[in-house]
Structure formats: structure tokens, C-alpha cells
């Protein structure tokens, strides 16, 4: 047993190799009880691998991890009663009715018979599926399916919930509803461990880990990350055409880093006010039409780009 009851998940030097490929490389972190803990990174960064190790579905190559005080290597069967898990791919039974899926998972989690109807009713209400209990699960829109999957995963009121990209492929309104559910659970003391590659969703997390190519590149609250991890200030540059504009921006005076964000460019500079003028002049000299240069607050995406592109040159010791 882990003596420290403050943490619901602890991870220490955890490594997972598939053959010669290292999916997760000596990562370490802790999650506190009742917090929404975000695991942020691009596809293939090692998010799903980490979550699967924590759920006891994969055996780590080395390192140590505990969930609800239980060791993932030796006590994975006991862990399963303490967790709820939603895998990346929708994985309820499409050929069962809504109510049948709920009763099935209620049975597997051994929810007490007298309590099951109440829990099923709660899950139906939470997923907004009142009146559609008899609908075939496969016929539901994606957003509702994901809420039903969450309902199935937490029927037994687990203290820790792992959600692997729960909102991928879900429309914006359903995404917001889903995050409201996550926060409601956290308020009731549940630790919610959630992975996402949507940078905007990361802002909803209490604490975050940024992961890239199997390594943790930063950790902290969204605000901390934005303040600490960005060296310098951020300029938004709108110009035409974009490709040559990026080239010119990288060579412009005072620019430490530049990247494409949507249909504009972001540049990292030491002094935003001083650099704006020379940048505009430099771009226009290279026949790039500049329509706007202004300072903006950094988003987590900027932080992420800054941390992953400068890795190797800068020490990634931004850990909180």
C-alpha cells in the first residue's frame, strides 16, 4: 500500500517499450484526489499507452505506478474495481439497447442489485437519454454514445476515472456538456484522469502534463505552464502569403521562434513592443503583405509548440 493518501495515482520512472520502440520513457507524476488531471499531447505521444498501463491492460517494461494505492504490476485485478475506464475507441455494444449495456456493466462491476436501478436511472439522466433507454446503442449520435460510455464506466462509483480522448469526434456542444460532467464528478471527490489532443480542452484541467514522444515536457496548472514555459512574449502576425511569410519571420530581427497557427503566424520575441516594427519592415522587404502585428497572451498550444520545438536546446525542466 502506498502510505500517501493524498495521491490517487502515482507514477515513477515508468517506461514501456514495444520491441525497439519506446512508447513511454521514464515518466513520473502524481495526481491528487478530486482533481481533473489532463494528459496532453499529439497522437502517438504515449498518452493511451500510459492510461492502459494504469488500468492494468499493459505491463510496464520498467518503473512503478500505483492507482488508488494499488500496484499496477501486481494488483491489477483489484485496481479494476477501483477505476472506471473509457477507451479511445467507442467500446460499448452497438447491438445492445442503452439499458442492456448499462445492466451488463452494472453486473460486471457487481453493483448491488438493490442499488442498480437507481444507478442506471442516474446514468440515463446524466447521459440525457431519458426516453431512449430502449434505443439500440449503435443508433445514437456520437456525443450521446460517449456520455453513455462514461455512465457505464462509473456505475460502481469508482474513486478514479480514466478517460482516453473522450471527446474526439464529438461536436463542440456535446464536448462542453461532457466537460461539465467531468467537473461534476471531480467536485464529488473523483479523480478524473483525461487525455486529449485538443489544446483548448486542456484549459479545463486543474493540472496538466504535456507529453511528447514518450517524454514529459512540462507539468503544472494551465496558468503556470503559460507563465513559466514561455520564454519571452508572443506576437500574432497576419500576412499573405503564409509560407514565405513564415520563412521571412524566422529570419526577422529579434524572433526566437515562429510557427503557423491556423491562418496566421505566431512569433516568440523578447520584447513585443520593440520587435513589432522591425518585423513588419523585414517581412514587407521580402514582398510579404502584412495586415496585422499585435501582442497576444499565449495559449497552451503556443506553450506546447515552444516546448517541443526547442527541446534539446533548452533544458525541459519546466516541471512544477
Amino acid at each position, binding site marked *: 500500500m502506498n502510505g500517501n493518501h493524498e495521491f490517487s495515482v502515482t507514477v515513477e520512472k515508468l517506461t514501456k517499450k514495444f520491441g525497439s520502440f519506446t512508447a513511454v520513457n521514464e515518466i513520473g507524476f502524481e495526481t491528487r484526489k478530486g482533481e481533473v488531471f489532463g494528459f496532453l499531447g499529439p497522437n502517438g505521444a504515449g498518452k493511451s499507452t500510459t492510461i492502459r498501463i494504469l488500468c492494468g*491492460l499493459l505491463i510496464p517494461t520498467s518503473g512503478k505506478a500505483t492507482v488508488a494505492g494499488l500496484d499496477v504490476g501486481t494488483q491489477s485485478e483489484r485496481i479494476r474495481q477501483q477505476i472506471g475506464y473509457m477507451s479511445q475507441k467507442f467500446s460499448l455494444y452497438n447491438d445492445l439497447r442503452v439499458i442492456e449495456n448499462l445492466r451488463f456493466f*452494472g453486473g460486471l462491476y457487481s453493483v448491488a442489485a438493490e442499488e442498480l436501478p437507481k444507478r442506471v436511472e442516474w446514468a440515463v439522466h446524466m447521459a440525457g437519454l431519458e426516453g431512449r433507454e430502449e434505443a439500440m446503442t449503435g443508433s445514437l449520435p456520437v456525443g450521446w454514445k460517449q456520455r453513455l460510455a462514461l455512465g457505464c464506466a462509473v456505475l460502481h462509483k469508482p474513486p478514479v476515472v480514466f478517460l482516453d480522448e473522450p471527446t474526439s469526434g464529438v461536436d463542440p456542444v456535446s464536448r462542453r456538456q461532457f466537460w461539465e460532467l467531468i467537473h461534476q464528478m471531480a467536485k464529488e471527490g473523483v479523480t478524473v484522469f483525461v487525455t486529449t489532443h485538443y489544446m483548448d480542452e486542456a484549459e479545463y484541467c486543474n493540472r496538466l502534463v504535456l507529453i511528447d514522444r514518450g517524454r514529459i515536457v512540462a507539468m503544472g496548472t494551465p496558468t503556470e505552464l503559460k507563465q513559466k514555459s514561455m520564454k519571452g512574449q508572443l506576437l500574432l502576425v497576419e500576412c499573405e502569403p503564409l509560407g514565405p511569410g513564415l520563412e521571412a519571420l524566422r529570419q526577422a530581427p529579434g524572433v526566437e521562434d515562429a510557427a503557423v497557427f491556423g491562418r496566421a503566424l505566431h512569433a516568440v520575441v523578447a520584447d513585443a513592443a520593440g520587435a513589432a516594427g522591425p518585423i513588419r519592415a523585414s517581412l514587407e522587404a521580402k514582398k510579404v503583405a502584412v495586415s496585422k502585428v499585435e501582442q497576444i497572451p499565449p495559449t497552451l498550444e503556443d506553450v506546447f509548440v515552444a516546448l517541443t520545438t526547442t527541446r534539446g536546446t533548452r533544458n525541459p525542466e519546466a516541471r512544477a
Partner: protein
Amino acid sequence: MSLRRILAIMRKEFTQIRRDPRSLAIIFVLPLVLLLIYGYAVNLDVKHVPLCVFDRDGTQDSQDLLKAFQATEYFDVVHVARNYREVVEKIDTGECEIAVVIPHDFSQDLREAGGTSVQAILDASDSNSANIALGYTQAIVAAYSNRVQVEWAQRRGLPAPASVLDVRPRTWFNEDLESMATIVPGVVALVMAVVGAFLTSLTISREWERGTMEQLISTPVKALEIQIGKLIPYFLIGMVDTAVCAAAGVALFRVPFRGSWAALFGSSALFLVAVLSLGYWMSVVAKSQLAASQMALVATFLPTFLLSGFLFPIDQMPVVVQGITRALPARYYVTILRDVFLKGTPVRMFASELVALSMYALVLVTLATRAFQKRLE
């Protein structure tokens, strides 16, 4: 072990089977199709062989002999040839499988030279049927020859020449020598093997393919609970299929049932556990529905069809192949079924087959249990 979780899995499997047209077809249609195909179409009895006769003698004696051919159900006289060319033509075209040619001086030689012969021409492209037809022909001619001798002796007031030795056959168990009676028990085994292994081969691989397995193994359900919960529905279905096939065999094909129902269901239960576990094991190993179901069919249908003794008698096989049949649960099951249906043999007489089946069931259950891990790799 939690009964609650096993029941949850069982209920889910039944619901999914009920809603899957493919599973329903395998459960309800396949056994009937197999039974009808093998019951009606596969007929190993050689009867009504098309016969061409060419009577070059044209006497009362030659006509008497040909009448003997007409009188039996084994031959149908479909053509009376007027010359030798017609005989050759009928055999060539396959219209007749056998031709009987009676020589010119048949009657005269029979009565005066003290003996003669008739010619039989056979299409031996199907050697088995040709052999049997030749046997019938020899028997008919021998009977006729015997009659002629008796008449000859009687006309001279001599005592009839007694046969020194003859065979009085009594065929047991299948009194009419109907091949149907031996085939139907084999069909029951074939249906069990195919339905059992095919259905279960889909059950685990389907969950991997659809991604539901990852959710399933993240719950506290144990591997053995999944296995038991998934196999019990198919076991019950298999037992019902056995009963339906056995009843259809008795009712439709008039196959005798002389043994005990307990012996039938007991041995069927053991055989089912073996083939269900085989399918389940393949499902676990293959992880894809297509691969698993193909493996299950190859591992059950072909060996049961060729090597179980269902159609081809095992003691006629080369010794090496006979050895291979010992590795097949179906071989023991077919032996038991024939005993139960046709002979009504007491259980202790096929105890060794029951022991062999139990061992296979145990080995395959163990393999299936060990193969399934609640892990993603």
C-alpha cells in the same frame, strides 16, 4: 468466481445471438441443410444400376436369365440392344453402367455341352459401384445356374445336388444394409463440430474487432468468468441442435435408435465441450473473425468429414492415417453415436471412447483457458 458476472455475460451473449442473423442461420439452418444434404443426397447404396442387355440367343433359357436381372431392384434394364455396336455405344455414353451379353449358342451349350458363360461389360470409372454391380451380377447368374442344375437333375429323376457349403447371412444392427443408418449418426457429429466450433470462433474475435474487448477486460470480470459465460449459451444451443438432428434422423430417415438418451446426451456434452473450447481457443489466438472462423472450419469440418469414419471406414484406411484418426475427438464421438443409434450397446462397451472424449474436452478447455489473458498484448 462471481455467478453475477457469469450471468451478465451469458445474458449479453444470448441477446447478441438473438440479434445476429448470421448466428441464427448457423444455429437453425445449417444443421437442417447438412442433415438433408447428407441424408438424401449422399446415398452409398448401389441400386437401380442402368443395365443394357444383348440377347444373341433369343431362347426361353436366355430370356429366363434376363428376367432374373429384371426382377431385382439392383438393376434397371434400360436398353435392349440389337447388335454389339449398340452395347458399346450405351456404355460409352454412360447411359448404361453394365451390359450383359448372352452368346449365340447359350441354350444349346447349357443343356448339351454341360456349361457356358455370359459376358458382363462394366463401366468401372466408378470402381466402387462397378465392384458392387459385378457382385450382384455374379450372384444372379450363380442362382440361375443353380436352378438349371436342380431342374436338370429332377428331369432325370436324380436327387438334387446338395450344396456342400453355403452362407446364411444375418445382418445385425442395420438389417436392410441401408447406408442411411450409418450416415445419420455421422451427420449429427458433423453438425455438432461445425456449429460448435464456428459459433464460438466468432465470440472472442468479434469483441477484439469491434473494440469492446478493451472495455470488457478493464472491468473486474475474470478470464474464466468470460469463458464460462460465453460458452454456456453455445453449449445449450448445441445440445438442442443435437436433439433436433437425432430426432430428425429417426423421424425422417427411419434410423433406429436403440441406445439410451442419457448416453447420447452424455457423449454429446463431452464432444461439445471439446469443439466449443477449440473454437474459443482459435478465437483467442486469431483475434479476427475471418481468420478464427476459417481455422475452426478447417480444424473441424474436414477432419470430421474425412477421418471420423463418418463416410469412409477407418479400418480401410492406411495404418498411418488410422493413427491420425486417433487424434480426432470426432472419431470417438462417431463410434459412440453408431453404437447408441444402431446397436444399443451398453455404456461400458464404449467406455474407452468416452474416456478419450473426456480427455480431449479437458485438454481443449485448458488450452482455451490458458490462451486468454486480460491484457492487450
